[in-house]
């Protein structure tokens, strides 16, 4: 303490309030910079520390300076710019402290909460102004803090421009609609005023928590991306998640979702004439495109091939019938490979003959393919042989269900430099899966090569990626590879 304890306490508490604001604001850029997404765990605590010191600062002033005379206090606030700035900074922090709990995040919804908590930017700016206006002549410290605030805010602007506009949100299951015997549509309301801003054809990634384990699955959005009231995904029930959904999926269940992600998108300006190929549950992103075309009244010529096993497997049958009536430029060809005797539509496969017959000229059409890998491969070959070039063919890359265990694939040494472990890993498994099976933490989100969260630097060896849409070219050049879709092609050393 100095000879002036009032001033000492006032300055100390004020400075720490400002410092903790800066620490709080540093969390997001540091997470990105150091690739430590777990730092998010400290953000709430740092923010509350700042509010704690700001409260002490405020009370010190109110008590020791103003003697709890609220009238005098208010006179000072109104009269003196620097006090007004400090007071405003403090008042703005209060709602953020109150709503800092998980409960409030859920009550407000992720987006709303995030929007509210952007007030912290204003608090930081006001805090620095408060300090700057206080000092008499030596402005080094206020300038120092001001520079840091400017950098932290600039990093956010830069981040907003360079990264995809996706985010995480907590969604609440509000409706379950059975589509076929093994497909259900899950409906999640969107918090009011927070459109998803998805493009038609994109997907969301869900973190299901099943028996205490986090299981991540990505699902195409099946509803129109223009809807602001809800979002729907259609899920084919198979495997672990499906039995979980059978057992636990009830209205009211909440789930963390990320996205929207994905490059498999319809663009009304580019795609004037499109042909959609759906195999089984691959119909979902294509239905979203159709619903978008309907809602936005886009004048695009659409032809849909929909390959199913039997008439019982046609998801969205009614919806497709409705769309056929509604959309003047839409045609739908459902091909069943093993239909019942009552099936009146075409039988067999989506083969060359049928495509040639329905499509005619390849022209400048764009082809969207979504379905099992073999289905997409076949269609792609046919289209290529008909003269379509690679740029005309778009396909959704995520495979349905887990990749089959390939025991014949060669095994390589995989070394994780930061965690300090070396393991034998199959070249059939993704490096992310190998890391996870040895409890090595690599942050991830979409798991399908779209979001870039899992990008990790490869120090040595070759990694082959199924897709690299989520990897910006500069990072690729710097040696980063996407772990979720990356497989070892020899011994590798990873900076993870």
């Amino acid at each position: 303490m100095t000879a002036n304890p009032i001033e000492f306490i006032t300055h100390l508490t004020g400075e720490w309030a400002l410092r903790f604001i800066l620490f709080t604001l540093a969390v997001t850029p540091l997470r990105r910079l150091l690739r430590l997404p777990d730092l998010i765990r400290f953000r709430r605590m740092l923010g509350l520390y700042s509010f704690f010191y700001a409260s002490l600062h405020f009370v010190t002033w109110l008590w020791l300076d103003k003697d709890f005379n609220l009238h005098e206090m208010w006179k000072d606030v109104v009269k003196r710019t620097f006090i007004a700035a400090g007071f405003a900074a403090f008042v703005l922090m209060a709602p953020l402290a109150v709503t800092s709990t998980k409960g409030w995040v859920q009550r407000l919804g992720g987006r709303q909460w995030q929007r509210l908590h952007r007030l912290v930017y204003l608090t930081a700016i006001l805090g620095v102004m408060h300090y700057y206006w206080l000092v008499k002549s030596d402005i080094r410290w206020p300038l120092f803090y001001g520079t840091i605030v400017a950098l932290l805010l600039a990093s956010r602007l830069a981040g907003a421009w360079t990264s995809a506009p996706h985010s995480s949100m907590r969604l609440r299951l509000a409706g379950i609609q059975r589509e076929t015997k093994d497909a259900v549509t899950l409906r999640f309301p969107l918090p009011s005023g927070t459109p998803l801003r998805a493009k038609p054809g994109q997907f969301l990634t869900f973190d299901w928590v099943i028996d205490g384990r986090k299981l991540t699955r990505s699902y195409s959005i099946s509803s129109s991306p223009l809807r602001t009231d809800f979002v729907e995904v259609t899920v084919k029930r198979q495997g672990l998640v499906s039995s979980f959904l059978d057992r636990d999926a009830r209205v009211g269940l909440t789930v963390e979702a990320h996205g929207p992600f994905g490059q498999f998108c319809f663009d009304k300006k580019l795609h004037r004439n499109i042909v959609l190929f759906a195999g089984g549950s691959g119909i979902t992103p294509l239905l979203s495109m159709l619903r978008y075309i309907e809602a936005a009244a886009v004048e695009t010529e659409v032809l849909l091939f929909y390959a199913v096993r039997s008439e019982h497997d046609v998801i969205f049958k009614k919806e497709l019938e409705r769309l056929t009536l509604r959309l003047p430029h839409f045609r739908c060809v459902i091909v069943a490979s093993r239909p019942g005797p009552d099936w009146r539509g075409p039988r067999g496969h989506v083969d060359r003959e049928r495509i040639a017959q329905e499509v005619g000229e390849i022209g400048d059409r764009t082809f969207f393919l979504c379905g099992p890998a073999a289905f997409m491969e076949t269609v792609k070959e046919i289209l290529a042989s008909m003269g379509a070039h690679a740029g005309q063919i778009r396909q959704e890359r995520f495979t349905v269900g887990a990749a089959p265990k390939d025991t014949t694939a060669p095994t390589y040494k995989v070394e994780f430099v930061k965690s300090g472990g070396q393991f034998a890993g199959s070249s059939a498994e993704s490096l992310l899966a190998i890391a996870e099976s040895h409890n090595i933490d690599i942050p991830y989100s979409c798991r399908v090569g779209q979001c870039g969260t899992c990008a990790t630097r490869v120090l040595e060896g070759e990694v082959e990626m199924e897709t690299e849409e989520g990897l910006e070219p500069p990072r690729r050049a710097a040696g980063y590879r996407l772990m979720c879709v990356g497989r070892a092609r020899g011994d590798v050393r990873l900076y993870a």
Partner: protein
Amino acid sequence: MLIAKPHEIPYSGVTPKRLYLSRRALLVGFPAAFLLPRAQAGARLEDLVKSPLSTGEKPNSIRDVTTYNNFYEFGTSKEQPAQLAKNFKTSPWVVSVEGEVSKPRRFSLEEILKLAPLEERIYRHRCVEGWSIVVPWAGYSLSELLKRAEPTSKARFVAIESFYDLKQMPEARHAGIELPYVEGLRLDEAMHPLALLCVGMYGESLPPQDGAPVRLVVPWKYGFKSIKSLVKIRLVSSQPPSTWNITNPHEYGFYSNVNPQVDHPRWSQASENRLGGFRRRKTLMFNGYGDQVAQMYAGMDLRKNF
């Protein structure tokens, strides 16, 4: 006139200062122990005459007055001067009195110490920042020195300048004010008996952070008028510039009389925080020296001439 008793117990004489300070340090705690200055080896000033101009209020502790200083040449924080002025060279020291005077003179510090009987004056000291202290200064009225130089009839103001040397004051480059520090008084203010040419405090010579070896103390004005470590006094015919007025003319006027009715633009001047305490007290007009000085400002708009 009061006659001092010979060999009065000095303020620091009861307990050796070093012990006294280290005892405090224990109380204040670990971090403060590092901030405490080493005991200043101030020379005892003999035969101080008690002044009738002293206040009866209890002086602050010497620690308050030596660890909490505004002396921007030695850093802008309150704690820095005690550290950074430690090796400030105050000898030899010459104060030049010049300008509108019949006998311009350069006074050595030794001469200044013997020019007139040294008095102990306990003054209230009010900083423009809203804190105050009570200090037993040692010195005599500035008029004693000025008289020796015989101001001419043209002299209407005094302009005073501090010592400035970046080599000894490296922190001064961050002070944010123009240096050397300059201050000024109207001649009648400078000749007022309360205006003190100060060479010591607490019965000893001034520690560097308090303006060694010689400073001004103008108790009815805000502390920044009480210029420290002065080297030049120039009598002039028109109002001289003053450092804080140059720095921020909207906030700091030439007169800067303590005035609870005229707020600093950024804070109220109605009350003050006496160092060592936790409660604010009302600030007095002219810092409580109104009876002696108010007549100098009769008819002046003190709101305009702040």
